[in-house]
């Protein structure tokens, strides 16, 4: 195994609340790699949202189905795949529109994928039926530009 490419895997049942275990595992790995506390908070939220989506939409909250979280460490980045047994999201992420939400023209929910995109350096959703689907996120130790600024609409 390449010294700079270690991989850690966590498998959870699809039960809401257990995403916290994934958050803490990922935070531990990121801490070992030298990520700072703010970036670790970003990662935790992104992983939380990806796990909840995998449990809820991918595995339909069937607790006998697992969500896998695969953490691949490079010298200067962490790649996280959150794998479920479903078909993956259709279409791409809509940016939440707070005005529409406040006027009930858009559901109050529907912010998870947007938050993931805003908080990590790279993300893609990959569907490979019948095997399942996964969100693949990358978070870098030294991002080229700071992409995590709060972006107000």
């Amino acid at each position, binding site marked *: 195994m390449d010294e700079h490419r270690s991989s850690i895997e966590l498998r959870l049942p699809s039960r809401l609340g257990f995403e916290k275990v994934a958050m803490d595992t990922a935070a531990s790995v990121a801490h070992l790699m030298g990520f700072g506390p703010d970036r670790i908070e970003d990662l935790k939220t992104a992983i*939380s949202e990806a796990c*909840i989506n995998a449990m809820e939409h991918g595995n339909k909250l069937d607790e006998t189905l697992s969500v896998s979280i695969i953490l691949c460490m490079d010298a200067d980045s962490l790649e996280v795949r959150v794998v479920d047994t479903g078909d993956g999201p259709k279409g791409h992420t809509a940016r939440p529109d707070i*005005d529409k939400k*406040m006027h*009930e023209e858009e559901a109050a*929910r529907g912010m998870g994928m947007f938050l993931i995109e805003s908080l990590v350096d790279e993300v893609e959703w990959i569907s490979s039926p019948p095997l399942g689907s996964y969100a693949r996120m990358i978070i870098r130790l030294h991002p080229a530009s700071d992409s995590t600024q709060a*972006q*107000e609409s």
Partner: protein
Amino acid sequence: MQEKLTQVKMEEVRCGEMPVTVLRFAGDITSASRTAVLGTYEGISGGPKHILLDFTGVDYLNSSGIALVIQMLIAANKNGQVIRAFGLKPHFQKVFAMVGITKYTTIHPDEETACAAYSG
């Protein structure tokens, strides 16, 4: 198995002359917090004009929890109430700003500045 859920405490305070209802949340705010967030709000909705949300004790807040806060803001908007908030950890302040909630409620650093804003 004991899962840590949402705790909420209601308090009537005065900010200067202004009567304000404070909802103090602790624990998690997630999809499991509907009753704690919206139920509590409905319980007080007849009364106060000014509502202050205290997030100091909140460790974990996800997008489903934020959706509940948005639903509370929608209802408050209809009822002509003003909601302010304080005590959000910096990371969650950033997340609130990302989704744009800060356009419809003001986030204060602490209770004192939030309270002072009512008499401003």
